[in-house]
Structures are given as structure tokens and as C-alpha cells.
């Protein structure tokens, strides 16, 4: 078998095998999943190795004809993505080993393995149709993942919300792929890249629809609204796996592919993408700042950080794109780590509510250290990995000349750091509540993945050269981008000083907030939350006034009523009307067939008189 198939077929087969394992056998499912995802990770490393230092692997099978072939191709960008996806599948399956509240274990691991298989397929697919196949498969397991992660109605409601939002945007993606494939005359991404499409006419629509599919997967505005809900209604491992890692990776990957690889974009598209990125950063971070739930706060950050990536890709210059891709892998690392700490705290204390937590540093030192590293990374504090990728995004943004976007991104950074100061202070420092006196450190199987991810944060920071050389640079080459500037390396340039200023502003803000809230860290955002003007907007946002999904849902009963009426009308046209007409005619004919000879005879005679006259007139004897 072609080794490129291993990351797709192996989890798929073992997911089905998993269903056969009896509920009574303990740990077999967990160990099987860890082994399978570990094997996939190893094969991903070898695939990447092959792509970097040899010729990339490829697998083609004829599928439906008409150019729809099942083609997997491990070029450098795809192998990089495959490596990232497999890494997270592996660490999450280790992490879930002793995490209790994740729903029925059988279904959790079933969903996890299938998500791993389908995301690997989506990353590797070269044919757009094959990619769509895997992409839509992920949609199914997104639904089941959320719906089966908790018992009860909220999980199903949120699952439906996630399913509908992503279902609609996946439909956009499907139409976009059809248009693009039709215009390009091929469904192969390599084939389209050979003659890049320009944005005019139908191609522009195709690009826009595909971009909607991509950014919605990544969780950008306004398609993000299911993520904060899922933070409350699903499990921490799911949050750490899908919205924090897999979705971002695949969404940004596709956005990069279409924006750089398949299409040659123009200034308008650039401006649109950057605006979307900046808006996502600001709006989501404003929401994140005022949250009082550990995971919900993190989930808004997961949205906000997407903005940096979209902003980076939207700059369309190599530095910005490198920043976007680098930020993509960095974000997945630290955000996954942060969700894991949230899960650990939830498991040990039973709560994720900031007002009920505090002073856990002594009780859970390893978790706390991992949290601090990841939080520093997300806030862009030098020299962790988030700092370098954000620097690249900033530099790329400045290169385009749109200073406003740079300022918005920096403002986003201030609020990010401020909210993590609030979060860290509320959870790990300050006074520990009485109820948490006996709290202990999380088990080793949960600490290990956190340590791995925090270690990557540090390693990719201090040794930023490593990922840049082996992952980012080859991807840029793969995309056909050339650049002069060095991507890695630490400089005391003005961007560094700006970042120092950002840190200082955030710290001052936090101290001011603490003072205003009389020393209660979980209330330290109240001076902004309840500021005049903002207070009303926040209240409306909490009620879902800006959530397109909720707004559309309010419209549903009316639309359904209207459609029902229309349906009744068509029903009447196709059902009642013909049958009542037939009824009238058949009643008339029933009344006519009385059995009377004279009547029947008269009819017969009338018939043949008409017939003879007609045929005699037109038949020839005139």
C-alpha cells in the first residue's frame, strides 16, 4: 500500500474496529487510539521527510470520471499540514486518556479517529472534489463530536448550530469548487496552479465562495458563533482538538491555497481579507476580555487569533503569508495547550467559573507553568513562538502600507494580554477559595501533552529558525513565493519596542481594573465591560443580537409559515384541483351512462354522422 494512505486509512479502519470493542474492557480503546494516532504521526514525519528531501508521494485512483479523481499529493505545504494535524490527534488522544467528562468513550474515540482520518485526507487531497469529500466528512463528525460529548439538550442544540453554520458555508465551498473547476477545466489543484485564475466574472464568485468556506472553517467573523457555545456545551478535549487546532489548520490552509496557489488576487480582495482579519481580531477579543468562563474566554481568543492569520494571508506578500502560516501552527499549539489547562482545572476543581477559582498555582504547579508559557505565547511576549509569528504578520501588514490594520492588530494584542492577565490572575493567583483547599495536580497523562505543547511553544520561540527552515520556507516555495528578507531571527527593531509598549499598556490596564474592582481579579475587566456606551453593546451581544444564526432562527417560524402556505397552495394545484375536476367529470359521466337505449343509440348515430361527414369532406369524395 502507498504509505501516503496510512494517515487516512489507518484511523478510519481502527475507528470501525473500535466500535466492536466491548464496553467492559478498560483502556483498550484509549491505548488503541494512542497507538494509531502515534503511528500516523510517525508516518506523517516520514511523508514530510520525503517531501522535503525527495520527491513528494502521490496516490491517484480514478473515481467518478469527468476529472473527478481521487488524488492525494504530499507536496511540502500539505505534508506540513499533515504533520500538524497528526501531532494534535496524538497529543489529544493522550490527553483524553484520563479525562472523564468527554461523553461515551467509544463514541469520543470513534469521532476523534474519524476526524483525524478525514482531516488528514483534506490536507493531502490534490483534487478539489476529493478535498470536498473529506471536508464534508469532517462536518458530520463535527456534529457527532459535539452532540455526543455531553448528555442533554444544550449539546445537541449547539451541535445543530455548528452543523448548520458549517453546512451552509460548506455548501458555498461546494458551489465555489464547481465554478472554479468548471472555469479552470480541471479539478486538480496542481493543474489550476499551473494557470492561475484571475478574479474576474464568475471566477471572482468562485473565489469568494471558496473563501467563505475556508474562513468559516477557521472560525472567522461572522461564522464563529458556535465556538463560544461549544465551549460551554462540549468537552475540553474536543475544544482543544477541533476548534483550537484542526479547524484553524484546515481553514487557513485552504485560504492560503486558494488565495496564493489557485488564484491571483487583486487589491480589492486583499483589502477585503485584511478588513475581515482586523475585524475578527478586534470584535472577538473585545468579547473575550469580558468573559467569566475559562473555556468560553479561550474560545473567543480562538476566534480572535484567526484574525491574525487571515490578516497575514491577506497581505499577499511573502512575509505576511509566512506569518499567517507560522501563526497557524503556533496558535494551534498554545491554544490547544490552554484548552488542556482548562480541562485539567475543570477535572480537578469541578468548575470553569472564574469567580469560583483562584490561587491554584501551588496546588497545580505544572498546569500553571504550562498555562503561563502558553498565555505568554498567545500574548506575543518575546521570545516565545507567538511573538515571532505576530512580528511577521505585523511586518507584512506594514509592507502593504495599510497602517490602520497594523494599529488594530496591536490593539488586539493589548486586549489579548489584558484578558490573559485577568484569566491567569483569577485562576492561579490571588486567594484560594475554601472549597478548593484539597485540590491536587492533574494526572500525568494530562500533564504530558500540555508539557509537550508548552515545550513546542518555547522551542519554536527560542529556536524559531527550526520551524521556519523546515516548515514555513518549503511551504512558501511550494506556493511559488520568493522573498529577500530573513524570516527568523530576533531584532531589536521598532516592532520589538512596540511589543514592549503593548505589554506595559496591558499591565497598567490590569492594575487599574484591579483597583477599580477592589482587588477581585475576575472583575478586573468591569471598567471596560460596564463603561458607558460599551455596556449596552455588550448586553446586546450576550443576548445574541449580533449573532446571524440566532437572528436567522427568529426568522425561521415566519419563513416556515410562509413556505407552508405556499406548499398548501401547490398541493391544492397538484392534488385537490385535479382530483376534484376528475371527480366532477366522472360524476357527470356516471350520470350519463344510464343504460337507456335511445340515449346510447342517439350517441352512436351522432358519432357516425360526424365521422362520415368529416371523412367524406376531407377524405376525397367531394
Amino acid at each position: 500500500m502507498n504509505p501516503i494512505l496510512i494517515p487516512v486509512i489507518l484511523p478510519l479502519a481502527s475507528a470501525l474496529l473500535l466500535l466492536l470493542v466491548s464496553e467492559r474492557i478498560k483502556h483498550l480503546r484509549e491505548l488503541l487510539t494512542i497507538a494509531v494516532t502515534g503511528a500516523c504521526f510517525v508516518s506523517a514525519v516520514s511523508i514530510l521527510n520525503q517531501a522535503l528531501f525527495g520527491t513528494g508521494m502521490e496516490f491517484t485512483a480514478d473515481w467518478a470520471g469527468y476529472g473527478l479523481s481521487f488524488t492525494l499529493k504530499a507536496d511540502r505545504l500539505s505534508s506540513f499540514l499533515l504533520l500538524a494535524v497528526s501531532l494534535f490527534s496524538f497529543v489529544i488522544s493522550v490527553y483524553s486518556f484520563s479525562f472523564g467528562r468527554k461523553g461515551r468513550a467509544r463514541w469520543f474515540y470513534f469521532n476523534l479517529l474519524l476526524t483525524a482520518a478525514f482531516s488528514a485526507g483534506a490536507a493531502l487531497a490534490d483534487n478539489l472534489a476529493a478535498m470536498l469529500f473529506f471536508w464534508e466528512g469532517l462536518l458530520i463528525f463535527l456534529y457527532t463530536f459535539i452532540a455526543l460529548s455531553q448528555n442533554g439538550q444544550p449539546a445537541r442544540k449547539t451541535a445543530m448550530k455548528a452543523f448548520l453554520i458549517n453546512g451552509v458555508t460548506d455548501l458555498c465551498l461546494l458551489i465555489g469548487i464547481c465554478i472554479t473547476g468548471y472555469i479552470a477545466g480541471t479539478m486538480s489543484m496542481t493543474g489550476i496552479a499551473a494557470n492561475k485564475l484571475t478574479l474576474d466574472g464568475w471566477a471572482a464568485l468562485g473565489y469568494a465562495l471558496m473563501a467563505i468556506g475556508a474562513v468559516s472553517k477557521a472560525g472567522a467573523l461572522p461564522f464563529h458563533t458556535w465556538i463560544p457555545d461549544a465551549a460551554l456545551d462540549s468537552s475540553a478535549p474536543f475544544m482543544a482538538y477541533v476548534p483550537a487546532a484542526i479547524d484553524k489548520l484546515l481553514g487557513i490552509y485552504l485560504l492560503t491555497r486558494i488565495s496564493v496557489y489557485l488564484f491571483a488576487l487583486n487589491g480589492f480582495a486583499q483589502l477585503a481579507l485584511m478588513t475581515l482579519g482586523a475585524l475578527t481580531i478586534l470584535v472577538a477579543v473585545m468579547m473575550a476580555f469580558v468573559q467569566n468562563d475559562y473555556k468560553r474566554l479561550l474560545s473567543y481568543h480562538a476566534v480572535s487569533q484567526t484574525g491574525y492569520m487571515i490578516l497575514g494571508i491577506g497581505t499577499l506578500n511573502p512575509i505576511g503569508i509566512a506569518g499567517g502560516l507560522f501563526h497557524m501552527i503556533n496558535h494551534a499549539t498554545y491554544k490547544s495547550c490552554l484548552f488542556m489547562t482548562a480541562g485539567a482545572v475543570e477535572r480537578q476543581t469541578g468548575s470553569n467559573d472564574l469567580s469560583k477559582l483562584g490561587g491554584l498555582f501551588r496546588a497545580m504547579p505544572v498546569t500553571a507553568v504550562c498555562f503561563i508559557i502558553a498565555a505568554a505565547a498567545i500574548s506575543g511576549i518575546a521570545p516565545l513562538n507567538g511573538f515571532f509569528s505576530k512580528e511577521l504578520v505585523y511586518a507584512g501588514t506594514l509592507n502593504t502600507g495599510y497602517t490602520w490594520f497594523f494599529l488594530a492588530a496591536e490593539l488586539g494584542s493589548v486586549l489579548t494580554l489584558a484578558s490573559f492577565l485577568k484569566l491567569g490572575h483569577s485562576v492561579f493567583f490571588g486567594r484560594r477559595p475554601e472549597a478548593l483547599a484539597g485540590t491536587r495536580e492533574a494526572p500525568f497523562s494530562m500533564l504530558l501533552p500540555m508539557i509537550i505543547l508548552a515545550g513546542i511553544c518555547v522551542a519554536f520561540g527560542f529556536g524559531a529558525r527550526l520551524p521556519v527552515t523546515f516548515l514555513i520556507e518549503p511551504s512558501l516555495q511550494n506556493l511559488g513565493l520568493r522573498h529577500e528578507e530573513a524570516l527568523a531571527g530576533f531584532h531589536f527593531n521598532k516592532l520589538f519596542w512596540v511589543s514592549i509598549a503593548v505589554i506595559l499598556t496591558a499591565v497598567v490596564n490590569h492594575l487599574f481594573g484591579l483597583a477599580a474592582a477592589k482587588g477581585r481579579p475576575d472583575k478586573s475587566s468591569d471598567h471596560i465591560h460596564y463603561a458607558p456606551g460599551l455596556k449596552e453593546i455588550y448586553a446586546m451581544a450576550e443576548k445574541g443580537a449580533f449573532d446571524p444564526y440566532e437572528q436567522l432562527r427568529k426568522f425561521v417560524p415566519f419563513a416556515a409559515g410562509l413556505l407552508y402556505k405556499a406548499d398548501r397552495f401547490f398541493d391544492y394545484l397538484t392534488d385537490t384541483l385535479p382530483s376534484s375536476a376528475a371527480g366532477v367529470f366522472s360524476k357527470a359521466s356516471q350520470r350519463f351512462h344510464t343504460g337507456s337505449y335511445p340515449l346510447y343509440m342517439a350517441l352512436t348515430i351522432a358519432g357516425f354522422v360526424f365521422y362520415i361527414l368529416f371523412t367524406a369532406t376531407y377524405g376525397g369524395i367531394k
Partner: protein
Amino acid sequence: MTTGLLAYLLIPLFTAVLIPFAARTRHRLAGVLANVTLLAGLINVSLTLFNPANLASAFSGLAENGFALLMIFVIYLVALCVTFFSSYFIGNDSTVNRVPYYSLILTSVSAMCGIVTTGDFFTLYIFVEVLAVTSFALITSDDGAKGLEGAIKYFLLTFPASLFIIFGIAFLMLTAGTFSFESLKVIIASGLPVGGVVFAVSLILLGFLIKSGVVPFHTWTPDAYEGAYAPVSAYLAGIVTKVSGVYAVIRISMILRLFEIKAYHTAEVLMFLGMLSIVVGALAALRQNEFKRMLAFSSISQVGYIILAAGMGTPLALLGAVFHLVNHATFKTVLFLNSASLEKSAGTSDMNKLGGMEHSMPWTSWTSIVALLSTAGVPPLSGFWSKLIIIIALWDGGAKIYAVTALLFSVVTLAYFMVMQRKVFFGKPTEASRNAREVRPAMLVPVVGMCLLIAALGAFFPYIYAYLVEAIAARTIL
């Protein structure tokens, strides 16, 4: 007349004459003789038709007229089903006298074979009259009042038909000087003015339209079918009226198409009457309460399809008409025989008094379903293919409105049969149906055999189509 097929005509006639002598004291022998004669004929004609070597040689081995051969097969098949069914249907306490009954059936088989093998109008007329006389007598087999009324109506309302046919033949003699189909073809080909010939043929056609029960000449059919002795209705509806009327209409329309534009208006009238029959028959069938009466209206509607296709006159349409004629004989025989079974078991065929019969009579219920699905044109049964051919031929020939209407009315066909099936076989058992029992297995043999044939004709449609194209279209239709 095709002399090679003469035996199919003479042997039943011989048995018909033999029966009164042989079965004078033992009446049951009449049925045996009739069955044996018909079975022998059916086996004989089947061996010629279904010989696999025929398909391989593109039917070149069939020296005789393929159309006639197919019709003979159907005639023998339906007649055998009816006689076999009758030999168990006629009870010991029945008023039916077996000797004239079987003798008449065999005579009519012989007359029908004459009709389908003849090559000129005058012989055709003679055999049609023989057939009509035997039919009058058969309708009144059980001496019931309704049967008498049906027979009289049949006689009175179809006698103008004989009038027109004989007038037409006389007119044909005056204008063309010949009765024979072949010499008619020669005259048409010679390019002489043919206005009078067209009119003569149109007159003959009118006679046969009346005999086939096309609207507005349909009024005798419901009363005759409803009033006739139960197995006789199956015989009449399944084959007798089809051969005496519809077969001749198809045959004449094969000649009509040779006139090309000159007979255009006659063909037009034919199509219009066909469509009218489909519509009126189907709509009237929707509201009937009597099972056999509903089947009679359904028969009018199905004949409409055949006439419509015959009026279209393209080779494909004529093939569709021939195939639908064959299919109609199969499914309508099943339905009428089932109505006879119902009448025997439950004592009535009034649909309002029946209900839930599927529990007591499952075989009858299932065979009805197969037959009605085939009538409505549900794939893969045989009725689907013939309707499909007809509708495609209409569409190709430019009669798009007719094609669409024909398609729509096959839905109405399904509707009235579903109403029937629900009223009679599904639902809760009623007073009359609670005491009913399934008829004896021997009486189920004809209907089950016919259902198998319906399925087989659908399943082996490629073979049938090859037969229609190679043996009929290539030789009979010019």
C-alpha cells in the same frame, strides 16, 4: 388467407362440431375436449414463436405472417385460460349448459383465427359476423336477465357497424375493384386518384371502431361486460372485442399510412377518438362501484391507447399498438377472471360490499396487483414497455400534447385501480368477505400463469422487441 395457418382455424372448428356428438351424455367431456384442443394449439404456436433459434436467425425462419402468429398465440392463450377456468367455475348446480358453451367458444376461436389470418376485407367481414353471433350467444350463457340485456345492447348498438363495413366493402369494390390488402397496396402505389378508396376504407374503419367500443360508440361495452356470464366477460374483454375491432383497426391503419397525406384527416379522427376514449374511459372508471363495470371502462380507456397509436401510424407507434393489444389481453383477462372468482367466493362483485379480501383470498389479491400495475404502466411489467413505446412514438411523431395527456392518464389509470384495490382487497373485512374462501387452486392456475407471463414479457422485453421489429415491422408494416 395464409394457408399455412389454416390448421389453427380448422382444428377448433372440428372440435366444436365434435363436442355435441361426443359429449351428448357426458357433459363434462365437452370441457376436456375444448381444453385439450386449445392446449395443443397453444403448445404448437408457442413452439414456433419461442424457439430460440428464431432470435438467432432474426426470425427469418418464420415463413408465415408474424403478426398473425402472435395474435393466434394470444387468442389460444386467453381462450385456454377461460375454458380451463370455466371447467372449474361451472358448478354442478349451474344453469349453464356445457355443450353449447364450449362449442361456441371453440367456434369463436376459429373465427378469430380467421380474422387474423385473412388477407382481404370480405373474408374479414364474414369472420367478424361469425364472431359476433357466437358472442351474443355466449353472453347469455347463464340465462340471466342482465346477460340478456347486455346481449341485446351489444347486438343493437353494434349492428350499424356491420352496415358500415358492408357499405364500405361495396364502395371499395366500386372504386378499387378489389378486396384484397395486397392489391390495395398495388393500387395505392400506382398513383391513381384514391379519394374514393380512402372514403371506402374510412367507412370500414368506422365499422370496426364501433366494434372496438371507442367513445362515442362505447355505450354497449359496460352493459355487455357487466351482464355477461362471468368467464365470458373475461373472454369478451380479453380477446373477442379486441380481435373483432381493435385488431382490424390496426390492420386498416397499416393500410391508411400508405395513403400518406391523402388519409391524413382520417388518421387525425382516429387519434382524436383514441384520446377521447382514454379520457372518458379513465374518468368514468374512477367512480364505478361494480368491479366488472369499472373494468369495462378501463378497457375502453386502454383501447384508446391502442387506437391513438394506430392513428399515429408510424412503424414504432404501430408496434406499440400491437404490443399493447397483447398486453391488454393478458392483464385484462387476469382482472376479469379475478372478478369472476370474487363473485363465486363472496357472492358479489360490488366494491362497496367487499373489503379486506386480501386475507381470505391472497392469491387473487396479488394477481390483481400485478395485473393492475401492468395496466397502469409500472416498470418492469409488460404494460410499461408498450405504453412507453406508444408515448415515445407520439412524441417523436410530433403529437406532443397527445403524448403528455396519455402519460397523465396513465396516472389516472393507477388511481382508479388503487381505489379498486383498496375497496376490494385492503381495509377491514366486511360482511360479505368474512365468509369468503380462496378459490380452488385449479382456478388460480390461469391467473397465476398470466401474471408470470406479464412479468416475463416485461423482463424479456428485448426479445419481444426484436420480434416486433423483425417479424412484424419489417414484413407487415410497409
